[in-house]
């Protein structure tokens, strides 16, 4: 054997040995939510179970995450192997072939995932992102203040009843406001809440010809009712408030009622961060003329971009992080009250979870009652409860949110705000070629 051959064999053996021990590193983009941070902390557990896969985390602010992952996926950069995306992105990106379908084979138990959540993350029956946690919206209220004011809050109250209850509980002299609702402009901020509220007033974003419907009586009634109620019984500066601002107000004991994401239930009942943890009651969202679409549906989910070079490892991670076993793992570490909710039936059936989470029933009821495929009184061509799953919606929703926020702060009338928003939406839909 020549020295050249020996060298070649040595190189081949070394290469094979190197490959045998090669690790796959996957980069995961996520947001700074409690459940996501917990997942990050459990990295050693995953790496112990799958020693050939290493995880790298990139945590970003929600807006920045959306911008970064959209850039990455649209340009096929392959910077991220797993992305945290929402129910809005999953079907749109799935349709465009930007996402790998989630591997639901074997022991993943896809049938255990709540049907509405699974449907919202799918396109043409294929699931393009696996739900990490899910949420709907519901009423959170102060039982003590309601009792003191002599009002009762129940499931599916009418909006009139909620307004009357807000009036009864409103006590600004003592720093308590009847109702706290989102007012900050943004398709995922005030418009998430207002879209669901508008659904219950019989409104819809688009008719069957994709023409914007923001100047209809249903929208005017919704926004007029909202502006009037917030101006009379809401906190000052409500046009700047979204989830976190209202959470802070509620936890400080300054809100009689707060209608927002069900995930808030775990925060407002946590004595470490809430001054009113033991005084909170829950009820299903109110309605006006229909219960359809009265509460929203959202899920933060894990998707795998088609451009990833580590699809197999990414699938392994996504299946692990969204499995029943992962939920049990979190429970072992932090207790059943801290597990990610809103994804699997088995979680809600677990007696330990039912005992630990006082909000479990209300949350499950809210999620199960939301149907993204049928959320408006009159027929609509889009999927989504608090959004329309089309690429143009982000811009349309945010512009409308800005106008309605202006109406709330008093710089525009309700009619002016909706007419202006409708004109803008009409322009964008024309430019996009819908009609």
């Amino acid at each position: 054997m020549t020295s050249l051959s020996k060298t070649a064999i040595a190189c081949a053996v070394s290469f094979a040995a190197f490959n045998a021990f090669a690790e796959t590193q996957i980069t995961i983009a996520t947001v700074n939510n409690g459940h996501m941070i917990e997942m990050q902390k459990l990295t050693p557990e995953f790496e112990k179970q799958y020693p050939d896969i290493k995880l790298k985390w990139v945590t970003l602010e929600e807006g920045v995450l959306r911008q970064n992952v959209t850039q990455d996926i649209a340009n096929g950069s392959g910077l991220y192997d797993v992305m945290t995306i929402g129910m809005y992105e999953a079907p749109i990106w799935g349709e465009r072939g930007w996402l790998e379908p989630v591997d639901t084979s074997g022991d993943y138990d896809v049938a255990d995932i709540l049907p509405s959540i699974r449907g919202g993350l799918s396109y043409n029956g294929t699931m393009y992102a696996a739900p990490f946690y899910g949420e709907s919206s519901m009423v959170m209220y102060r039982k003590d203040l309601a009792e003191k004011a002599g009002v009762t809050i129940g499931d599916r109250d009418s909006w009139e009843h909620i307004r009357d209850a807000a009036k009864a509980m409103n006590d600004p002299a003592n720093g308590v406001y009847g109702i706290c609702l989102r007012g900050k402009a943004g398709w995922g901020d005030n418009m998430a809440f207002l879209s669901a509220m508008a659904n219950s007033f019989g409104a819809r974003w688009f008719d069957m010809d994709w023409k914007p419907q923001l100047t209809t009586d249903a929208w005017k009634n919704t926004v007029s009712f909202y502006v009037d109620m917030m101006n009379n019984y809401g906190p000052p500066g409500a046009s700047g408030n979204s989830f976190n601002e209202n959470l802070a107000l509620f936890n400080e004991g300054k809100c009689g009622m707060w209608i927002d994401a069900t995930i808030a239930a775990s925060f407002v009942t946590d004595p470490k961060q809430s001054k009113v943890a033991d005084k909170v009651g829950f009820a299903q969202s109110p309605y006006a003329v229909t219960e359809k679409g009265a509460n929203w549906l959202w899920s933060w989910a894990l998707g795998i971009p088609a451009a990833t070079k580590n699809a197999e490892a990414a699938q392994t991670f996504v299946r692990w992080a969204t499995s029943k076993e992962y939920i049990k793992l979190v429970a072992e570490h932090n207790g059943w009250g801290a597990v990610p909710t809103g994804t699997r039936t088995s979680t809600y059936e677990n007696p330990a979870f039912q005992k630990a989470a006082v909000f479990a029933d209300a949350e499950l009821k809210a999620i199960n009652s939301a149907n993204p495929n049928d959320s408006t009184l009159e027929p609509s061509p889009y999927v989504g409860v608090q959004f329309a799953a089309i690429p143009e919606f982000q811009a349309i929703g945010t512009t409308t949110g800005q106008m309605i926020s202006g109406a709330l702060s008093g710089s525009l009338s309700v009619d002016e705000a909706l007419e202006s928003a409708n004109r803008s939406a009409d322009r964008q839909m024309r430019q996009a070629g819908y009609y």
Partner: protein
Amino acid sequence: MTLTQQRKLKTLLVGLASWTVALLLFFPIFWMFITSFKTELQAISVPPQLFFEPTFENFSIVQERSDYLKHAWNSVVTSFGATLLALIIAIPAAYSMAFFPGKKTKDILLWMLSTKMLPAVGVLVPIYILSRDYGLLDSKLGLVIIFTLMNLPIIVWMLFSYFKDLPKEILEAARMDGATPWDEMVRVVLPLSVGGIASTGLLSIVLCWNEAFWSLNLTASEAAPLTAMIASYSSPEGLFWAKLSAASTLACAPIVIFGWFCQKQLVQGLTFGAVK
């Protein structure tokens, strides 16, 4: 009122105004600093709490969750690297424009400055695609190049102003002694402008350190500097102000200390030259 009394009153009023402006400017930093020692509940309490029992929990959470040293090292490499590269390009450019001006020199200078008026987001997509194609996404080299290009106009302008203020007679004397343009720049202009170059460099470092737009858009896990680390503490669903304040305090600390030591040069850099 006598003239002396008028002068004293004027000095007092100017002093008061200066202190008011200084306190107003310093207040957000002070508030960020004390918020970093509060619990999340204390951080959002209304009315805001000035006196409270401090906790170091937020700092330990930041330390546990983020690789602070890695982010800080990325900030140091990109800030100093970009400043060095920008100075290497800007010194000869400013020298030639200051001492050998052509007909279009003023136009070129104005054009360079006009590029700073373009919103960065306007060129995000082309820069992103170029970075992807040249393998510069999530790399320190990519950030160094972007930061260099970003600060080059302002550095050239500042250096141009310093060089313009040098007496031409000194250069003429050097030429009489047989110095070439290179000798003039290296042996005469540079030694005479060390203060100006240092203050320009310091300003560039501060601008690079604080840059967030490109850092957030072009990096992921490997090259992310401290600005990206801060952004990771904002949460759409959950209270985060205390932890965000702790992350910000840690990110600001090195550059504040650096600026404290170099404040004389920084003030000189900002009040002397093109941006005076």
